């Protein structure tokens, strides 16, 4: 048994030597995703990733899915390290729990690209690059959409805005809020942000938060929400209370927001495509392997979408 194993090893080692010569431009890239199938964003992401890899002759990919389980994701990282892939892309199930596994890959000399949502700062030393959306830009662009709309309506000097943020403590929620709050006074210095409350990414919770806002403030001209899911929750509250003329803007466009925009109830959002997300991740990994100078935070573009230009975009799949 042992002898045959050794012989097999020797053979395969010899084969590695020759195959490396034959195809020295081919990269093997492994990806371990968070939880494919739990929402359409991740499902579309996976399809787009595989399609992008197939379109590229120089890349072979190992596509894995952790099913939301940290233990399985760590095991998949170990497997990819063991298989000696050239680079690993990880969509973290938990931004901190995967740090030791990422360090292991780094110690094995395999560059790691984090995709979609970044790992915690303690792991930055072990990561080649982060590829994903820039939440700060998403927030500041939302502020611009909001401000432009107020200017159109001629209320840019008196408008009052409320904000519904994502789950407290989440980087995404904090950055989207910071981006908005920093940018708004720059473009519309006279617009007042009267209050900000968390909606926890939850539509019902946001509806309740908005109900409270409507009771508390007689005059609300704009609502900024951390994503369209929460924005539509707020919209429902306003509709139920019979309050018109409020400009709703979200920081990420969801199908519900897109539909509400089509009906003329919801003003605008930021378009984040899972296809762009997936292609950017693969591109980043290839660039890293090519030895190109890749910025540590490698963002892909997330354009503005409003009622005016929404027909340029497909309805989001999520």
């Amino acid at each position, binding site marked *: 048994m042992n002898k045959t194993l050794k012989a097999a090893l020797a053979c395969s080692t010899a084969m590695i030597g020759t195959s490396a010569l034959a195809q020295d431009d081919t990269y093997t890239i492994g990806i371990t995703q968070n939880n494919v199938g739990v929402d359409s964003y991740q499902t579309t992401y996976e399809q787009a990733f595989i399609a992008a890899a197939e379109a590229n002759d120089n890349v072979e990919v190992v596509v*894995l899915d952790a099913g939301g389980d940290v233990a399985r994701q760590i095991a998949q990282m170990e*497997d990819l390290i063991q298989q000696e892939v050239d680079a690993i892309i990880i969509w973290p199930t938990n931004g901190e*729990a995967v740090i030791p596994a990422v360090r292991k890959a780094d110690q094995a000399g395999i560059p790691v690209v984090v995709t979609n949502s970044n790992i915690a700062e303690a792991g930055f030393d072990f990561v080649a690059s982060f590829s994903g959306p820039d939440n700060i830009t998403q927030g500041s662009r939302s502020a611009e959409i909001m401000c432009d709309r107020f200017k159109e309506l001629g209320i840019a000097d008196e408008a009052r805005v409320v904000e519904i943020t994502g789950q407290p403590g989440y980087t995404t929620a904090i950055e989207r809020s910071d981006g908005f709050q920093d940018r708004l006074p720059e473009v519309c210095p006279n617009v007042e942000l009267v209050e900000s409350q968390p909606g926890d990414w939850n539509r019902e919770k946001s509806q309740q938060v908005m109900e409270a806002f409507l009771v508390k403030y007689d005059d609300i001209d704009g609502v900024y929400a951390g994503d369209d899911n929460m924005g539509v929750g707020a919209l429902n509250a306003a509709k139920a209370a019979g309050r018109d003329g409020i400009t709703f803007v979200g920081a990420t466009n969801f199908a519900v927001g897109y539909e509400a925009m089509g009906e003329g109830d919801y003003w605008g959002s930021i378009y984040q495509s899972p296809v762009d997300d997936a292609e950017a991740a693969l591109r980043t990994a290839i660039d890293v392997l090519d030895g190109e100078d890749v910025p540590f935070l490698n963002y892909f573009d997330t354009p503005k979408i409003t009622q005016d230009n929404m027909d340029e975009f497909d309805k989001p799949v999520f």
Partner: protein
Amino acid sequence: MFTERRKDLLKQGAIWGFIVLELAFFSIAGNYLSVTDTAFMDFDNMLLLLKQSAPIGIIALGMTIIMINGNIDLSVGATFALAAIVMLDSMTWPFMQALGDWAIPLAWGFALLTGVVLGAINGLIVWKTGVDAFIVTLGSMLGFRGLVFMYNGEQPTSHLNWTLVDFAEAQFLGLHTASWFLLAVALILWLVMTRTVHGRNAYAIGNNRDAAVNAGIRVGPHFLLNFMLIGFLAALSAVVFYSESGSVNPNDGMLYELWAITAVVLGGTKLAGGYGSIVSTLGGVIAIQLLRKGLGHIGADTETVNLVIGLILIAVLFLDRQLNRKGKEELKT
């Protein structure tokens, strides 16, 4: 007697035969389908396999005893998460931080204690109320998970300690820390089940509870002890795993109870109790992890693993029924 032994061997050998089959299949298929050049049967890969089997494996070994009793414990996943939270959170308490690295063994102690207490709650309710363990642990599964969410809401609980990580990643004689724990637990439980009165009682109770009571076995305390044991093991599994990862999501450990039960059943333990083996459960755990690893290795969709395991599980139960039918009929006549 001889046929009985042969049947036992056949049943206990089946899972290892299946593992050999998997190894052969993935080694051969891997040559054609895998994009990597490393062999599946690579020695390091097999060491990894053992390590990756540990989180569910340690729980499944305890589950074997519970199931030999004729009980079941659905709350192990929640216990796993709660113990992990206690371990990681306790290290951030001020007096613990003052202790430096000595806080680590203390935090382990807290986590293990949590597991034992949660297990004791299950055991006491089963003992004192006589309600079926399935119902009791279904309730505590929801209840314990509620506690997990109460502790820190939807947020992950994190404490990254590199000393801890280095310990968990260490390899002694080639085996990872987690593998040592898995093998040690397997050895101890195997000794308990085959060499002690407690082990013999476990089989007796599972086989025929009334007869066991008549024979003077104190069934209630026996159950309590076993539920404390599985609580301890669920916590131990959390200690081993989270020492390495340092952060727990509130929904971690969900479905672990089902994977553990699957591994136990794959290993040939009877759902009705009275029959089962620790070593075969170890085989069941390895078989599942091997399947996950192998399907990843040959580039199959990771989710196919659920389908395949489901099919195999049904096949195992069918086989088990065929093997047992003859014996039962003999008993009736």
